[in-house]
C-alpha cells in the first residue's frame, strides 16, 4: 500500500533529516579536522586556528612517515591487538560462563555469587591496595597484569545473565530430555540464542581494551615493550604539554613543530581500526542493547 505523505509529514521529515544531518556533521567535524591536520604542512598547521576543512599548505605524509618509522608504536599496535583479542575471546568466554551460572535458578550459590559480583561493581580497593595485590602475585612488569585482572566485568556478567533470563526454560528442558549436559546446553543450545548480547560484550571489551592505557602506565613501568598503543600515543600527545623544563634544550625540543603534526597522525592511526570495525558490529550492537526493552 502506498502511503500518501501529508504536508506535516514532509515538514517533519525535512526537520528530522536536517537535524540528524547537522548532528552527524557535528560528530564528524572534529575527526575531519584531525584528519586534515595530519596531512598539513607543520608550519602552516601551527599558524592555523579554528576548524580545518582542508589540509593547510602543501599536503604532506611526513607525520605518518615518522609515526610508522617509530618501532615502538608498531610494537604497541601488536600488543594492543593481543590484549584486545585476549579480552574479546577469553574474557567473553569467562563472562558467558559466569553469566550462565548466576542465571541458573536451581544453583544453590546463585544469590551469594550474584551479590559478590554486584559488590565488586560498587566497591573497589583503590589504586595502592590493587597495586599491592598485583605485586604480591608477581604481575608487576609482566604483561599478564593487563590480561588477568579485569578479564571479567561485573556489568557484562549481569548483561549476559539478563539475556539468559529472557530465554524460555523449555530450551533447556528439551535439551536435557535429549540427554544434553550443561556444557552442551550452554554452548550449543543457549549461546546461539543470545548472540546479540554476546556481540555487545565483545564490542564493549574491544573498545575498552583498545582505549586502555592507565593500567599499563601503573603496572608496566619497566616493560615498555609490552605497552599498548594508547599509552605510547598518550606519551606522544602529552610530550609537548609537559611544563617541566630543565634546560633550553628541553624547551626547544618541546617547541618542535613536527611533533605537533605527529600528534594528529598518531590520533588517526590509533582511531582508524576501531572506526573501520565498528560498522560491522553495529547491527548486533543495536539489537543487543535494546534486548530486554521489548517484551514478547
Amino acid at each position: 500500500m502506498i502511503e500518501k505523505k501529508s504536508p506535516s509529514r514532509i515538514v517533519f521529515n525535512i526537520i528530522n533529516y536536517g537535524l540528524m544531518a547537522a548532528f552527524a556533521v557535528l560528530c564528524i567535524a572534529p575527526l575531519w579536522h584531525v584528519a586534515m591536520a595530519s596531512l598539513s604542512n607543520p608550519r602552516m598547521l601551527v599558524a592555523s586556528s579554528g576548524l580545518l576543512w582542508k589540509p593547510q599548505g602543501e599536503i604532506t605524509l611526513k607525520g605518518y612517515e615518522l609515526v610508522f618509522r617509530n618501532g615502538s608504536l608498531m610494537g604497541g599496535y601488536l600488543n594492543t591487538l593481543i590484549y584486545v583479542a585476549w579480552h574479546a575471546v577469553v574474557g567473553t568466554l569467562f563472562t558467558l560462563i559466569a553469566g550462565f551460572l548466576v542465571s541458573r535458578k536451581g544453583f544453590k550459590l546463585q544469590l551469594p555469587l550474584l551479590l559478590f559480583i554486584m559488590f565488586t561493581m560498587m566497591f573497589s580497593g583503590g589504586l595502592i591496595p590493587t597495586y599491592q595485590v598485583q605485586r604480591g602475585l608477581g604481575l608487576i612488569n609482566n604483561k599478564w597484569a593487563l590480561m588477568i585482572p579485569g578479564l571479567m566485568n561485573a556489568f557484562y556478567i549481569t548483561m549476559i545473565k539478563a539475556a539468559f533470563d529472557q530465554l524460555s526454560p523449555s530450551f533447556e528442558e528439551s535439551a536435557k530430555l535429549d540427554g544434553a549436559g550443561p556444557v552442551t546446553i550452554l554452548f550449543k543450545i543457549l549461546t546461539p540464542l543470545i548472540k546479540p548480547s554476546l556481540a555487545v560484550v565483545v564490542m564493549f571489551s574491544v573498545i575498552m581494551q583498545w582505549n586502555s592505557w592507565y593500567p599499563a602506565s601503573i603496572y608496566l613501568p619497566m616493560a615498555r615493550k609490552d605497552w599498548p598503543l594508547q599509552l605510547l600515543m598518550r606519551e606522544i600527545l602529552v610530550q609537548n604539554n609537559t611544563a617541566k623544563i630543565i634546560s633550553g634544550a628541553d624547551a626547544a625540543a618541546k617547541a618542535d613543530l613536527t611533533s605537533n603534526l605527529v600528534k594528529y597522525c598518531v590520533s588517526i592511526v590509533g582511531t582508524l581500526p576501531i572506526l573501520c570495525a565498528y560498522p560491522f558490529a553495529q547491527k548486533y550492537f543495536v539489537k543487543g542493547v535494546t534486548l530486554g526493552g521489548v517484551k514478547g
Partner: protein
Amino acid sequence: MKKMFSLVLSLLLLLGIFPASAEDMPADDLSQHRSMTAFLQMDDYQFFGTKDESPVMRYLMDKFNFSIEFQQPPVGSETEGFNNMLGSGMYTDLMEITYSTQLPSVLYHDGVIIDLAPYLETYMPNYYAYLHDPQNINAYKAMYDSEGHCFTITTEARDDSPYLNWGGMVYRRDILETMTGGNVAFPSGNDEPMTVADWDYMLELMKAYLDATGMNDTAPLIIPYKGYFDTSELVSGFGCSGGWQIKDGKVSFGPTTPEFYNYLKKMNEWYTKGYIYQDFASRVNDLFYQPNMALTYSGAAGVFYGGYWQLADKMSMPEYGLMMDVRAVSAPVDTENGLETAFPALGILASSGVTSNTGAWCVSTSCSRENMIRFMTWADYLFSEDGAMMKTYGLTGDLAAADPLYQQLGLEKGTYWFDENGTFQKDMRTATNEIEPMGLAGARLPGLNIKKYSYAETEQSWLDADKIWCRYGDAGDYPVNAHGTAEEEARIADYYNTYTDYMNSEIVKFIMGTNELNEETYSAYVEQMNKFGIGEATQLKQEIYDRYMSY
C-alpha cells in the same frame, strides 16, 4: 697486672676499630658485576627506548661493569609514577627526582633516600672537588643543606662558561620598520624599546599594523593568562618581581608591593587601548614560552614570550610572503614613576640550568652498599673532563665505532671531534636544536655539562638576545636553591594554596577593568592577601633565606 690487662684490652679495641673503619669505605671492585635499577623520566628526543639503550649509558655499563634497568614512566605521568613507587614501597636503587613533589630533605626524613655526604670524598672525588671549589659556592649551597647533608648528585652542574638564557620577551621589529618606513624612533632615543614610553610607541604601531591586516584575531602584546609573568618579564620594569624577591637582604612578595600597582595600572591602560590580547585570561593551557602559537606563528602577534629558536627570521614563511624579524626585548623601565633601571629579577635564568638538588639523582634506602658505591664510581666519572665531555656531547669517533646506533646513524666520527686545528666540531644531523646532540649525549645523567664549546658555536642572534634578556641581572631573585625544612615548606605550600587563586583572579580583574583599580582597591587587595597569610609566608621565606646565606 690490672694495668697490663687494661692496656691489652685497649690495644685489642684499637685493632678492632681499624678493620671496621676500612670496611666502612671499601674500595669498589670493578671485576664484580653489579645490577641496579633506576627511576628516570623519559628523554624527549629519542633514538632509542629506555635509557639503557643510550650509547653513553651502554659505554658506561661496559666500562664500569654494571647493568641498569630503568623504570621510566610514560611522559606526562612522571609524578604519578614516582608517587606510586613511593606509595608501594618498591623503590628503585637510584632515583632521578625531577618529578618528586617532595624535597630531598623530606625524602630523607621519610626514609626513602640516604645522605651521600659521608661518601662523597671517598667515592666521588671529582664531584666533591667541584662542590668544594670556592668558585662554585652556589652549587655547594644547592647540594648541601645547612646541616651538612648532601642527598643528591646533580645533573645540571656546569663549567664556568656563560649560561645563556633560552627565552624571554621578543618583538617583531619588521612591523615597526614597515610602519615607520625604516625610521623607528623610540622616545628614549635608543635603538630598541627600553622604557615604558618606548613600549607605548611600539605597541601603538603594532596595533595599527595588525588592525590594517584585517586578520580576525590579533595581539599586539600577549601576556600569560594570570596577567603577569612568574619569571618577572615585564613586571621587573616596574620595580618588582613576579614572585619572591630580595631587596637589601629583605624578602618580599612582588605582586603585593607598591611597584606592582604601577604595573597593573599600565597593563590596564594597555588592555583598554587594545594593546593586550583581549582574550588572554582564557589561555590557561598555553605554556608561558609558547603563548597562542596560532597567533605568533601566523604573524598576528607583535610582542610575546619567545625562545632562541624563534629569533631573527626563523619564523618567516617566504613562500607565503610572511617575513618576520624577531628580536629580544628587555622589560620596559617605568621612568614615568622615577625608575632608572629595572628590578634585577630573571626567573628563567634563576631556575633553569642552575645546579639544583631537585634535578638530580639520589640513592634509595633499598640500594645495597655495593650498588651505591658502583653508582658513585660511574657517576663521578661524568664529573671528570672526559666523562663530562661525553655527558654533554656524546661519544667520540673511537668509541662510536663500537656503538651500533652510532653506526646506524652514520656517525663514524662520533657526535663531536677536534679537527686538525684543534677546533671543536660536531655533527648536528641528529640534534633537535643546534647546540647539543641531546638524545645521543648523556642527557639526564648526573655529571658536569661542558658548555664552553656550545657557547662558542652559538648563533649571534642568541648571544645578542641573551645580553638583552639578562640586561638587569638576577640579583633580586629569591635563590632557587634556598629550601626550608619539611615543616616550613609545608606551611608555605599551605599559604600558597590559600592566596594563589584569589591573587590571580584579582590581578586579571584589575587588568581587564572588571574591578576598578585605584590605590584604595589595591590596598584592599593587599590587605586581603595579608589575611590569606602572605605575611607569614614572607617571614618563613626570610628565615630560610637568612639561613641559606649564612653558610
